[in-house]
């Protein structure tokens, strides 16, 4: 499998701020890779460097195996969808979408055919003669998508393309983008700070934090086996219990916490005697007879398909438990429960 895009040791600083630091990233052909991270973590900067709109201070970027250091944006043959659409306000939808074809010297008849096809693909076949401002936000977004794809670039960059839309439209467009990605076989580098969006759409996710990648992996990997405390906290809901490391061996460890003695997967840097945190997903916590943890249910929240229990452990920390609604209830408010989990479902991180 070839890599469409490769970044190695890429750095970008703005005066004192290091926006992106020592970034290594590769995008496989046909892959949907999402950059996920909090605001200011360097996602847009990374995308701008790939598009050629920003120059990296160090490191190399290669497209289809060739360095692009000297290649200006207009010769990179990348499609880019900007966060706020960036449609040309003085051109109709059709002329917006035709613009990249015109730049490539595609003949008029061929261009018309491709534009119609692209508008069809994004579900706007009858909107070609409108101006961008005569369209709703979601429609503008789809035009931006059509414009970035109509010339069939090998690589599509999208910077929070759904950020400004309401939930229902987001979900609809998520599916559409996914469908287009599969039908066209385009490689996509996608940016979002919405972890749910990242989980539902991506083949792989790169979690950004302060200009660095914390972890790259499939959604399942990141969710079930987070490599750092930041990833565990950023993706999905997590219970954190802190304590001291008793033993580490074979990728497993034992942590002594005020609430009880816990088993978990070990991550890098755990030292016996040092303090550590155990992270476990609410749905991985199960009622257990020979339980490590004991507590009192302080709240029960019915969520339709599941119930959420807030359990106060004996040391006072709270632990959230999520059980399917069709399972027997864990207990009523005020009742005592015993909890546990399979050691593979919890992860321990070094503190600090």
């Amino acid at each position, binding site marked *: 499998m070839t890599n469409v895009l490769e970044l190695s040791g890429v750095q970008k600083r703005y005066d004192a701020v290091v926006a992106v630091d020592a970034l290594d990233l590769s995008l496989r052909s046909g892959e949907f890779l999402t950059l996920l991270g909090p605001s200011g973590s360097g996602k847009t900067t990374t995308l701008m460097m790939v598009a050629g*709109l920003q120059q990296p201070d160090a490191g190399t970027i290669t497209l289809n195996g060739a360095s692009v250091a000297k290649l*200006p*944006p*207009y010769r990179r043959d*990348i499609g880019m969808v900007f966060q*706020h659409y960036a449609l*040309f306000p003085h051109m109709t939808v059709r002329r917006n979408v035709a613009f990249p074809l015109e730049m490539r010297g595609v003949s008029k008849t061929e261009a018309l055919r491709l534009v119609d096809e692209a508008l069809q693909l994004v579900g706007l076949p009858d909107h070609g003669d409108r101006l961008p401002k005569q369209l709703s936000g979601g429609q503008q977004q789809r035009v931006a998508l059509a414009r970035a794809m109509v010339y069939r670039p090998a690589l599509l960059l999208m910077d929070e393309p759904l950020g400004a839309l309401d939930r229902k439209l987001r979900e609809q467009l998520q599916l559409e983008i996914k469908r287009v990605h599969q039908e066209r076989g385009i490689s996509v580098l996608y940016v979002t700070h919405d972890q749910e969006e990242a989980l539902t759409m991506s083949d792989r996710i790169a979690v950004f934090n302060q200009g660095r990648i914390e972890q790259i992996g499939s959604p399942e990997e990141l969710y079930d086996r987070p490599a750092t405390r930041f990833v565990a906290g950023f993706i999905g809901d997590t219970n954190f219990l802190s304590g001291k490391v008793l033993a580490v061996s074979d990728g497993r460890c034992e942590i002594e916490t005020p609430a009880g003695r816990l088993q978990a997967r070990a991550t890098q840097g755990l030292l016996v005697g040092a303090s550590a945190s155990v992270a476990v997903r609410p749905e991985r916590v199960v009622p257990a007879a020979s339980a490590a943890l004991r507590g009192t249910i302080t709240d029960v929240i019915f969520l339709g398909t599941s119930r959420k229990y807030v359990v106060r452990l004996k040391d006072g920390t709270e632990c959230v438990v999520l059980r399917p609604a069709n399972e027997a209830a864990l207990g009523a408010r005020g009742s005592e429960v015993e909890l546990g989990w399979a050691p593979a479902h919890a992860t321990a991180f070094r503190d600090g």
Partner: protein
Amino acid sequence: MNADGMTPWRLLRGALCILVAVYLLAPLVVVVIISFSSASFLQFPPPGLSLRWYAQLLSTPAWTNALLVSVKLLVPSSILATLMGTAAAYALVRGRIPGATVIMACLMLPIVVPGMITAAALFGVYRGMGLNGTLTGLVIGHTVLSLPYVVATVASALRVQDARLEQAASTLGAPPWTAFRRITLPLILPAVLSSLLLAAILSFDELIVSLFVSSARVRPVAVQMWSNLLGDFDPTIAAIATVCFGFALLVLIADLALRAGRGLRLA
């Protein structure tokens, strides 16, 4: 104004507006009326109406020459100022030029520096170059004077416009010049044309630099009016003033029409 809003405050405000309008327009109206006077000297109200001063204007070579010089001066100087000012504004707003704010401030200097000093400076520079008393000298002078207005107008239009549109054009395959021509220029065109018209009016009205740099042969309308006022003057001066006013009015209407047309097209 609707009837139910006729509170004392509204009345007072309306009266004040009318007062200011009268104060601003009255002298202008007087001049226009006098230009159609049949009397041989400035007199208001005129005893009768005639076009004799306009006939006088067109039959006096000094005035017709002055009008011709003014046109030969304002056309190239306003075009030059618009081209250079637009280029400068674009570079300063969009380019990554170190010290852009300082350069911008320097370009604004002709607005701040008293006209007399600019005029004297130009006169001094021209003396060594033999440009005093030439049309070229006047064109350069007026271009310098109009430039800051063009830069300011176009720069503010560029700042309002989303820079990402050009970036988008560039990712879509447009080289910089194409992106400017196809995306940026159409969007800032109203500002560019506005500043072209403004530069034309500035040139037509300009007196101080013209006084220093012009000669008896190359004498624009403003200078001719000035020297006429120094001697004994008759309603011809009112006629030429009315012509100037008419020109300014025309430009203003052109500008408004431009904006309205554009608004309609985008609506």
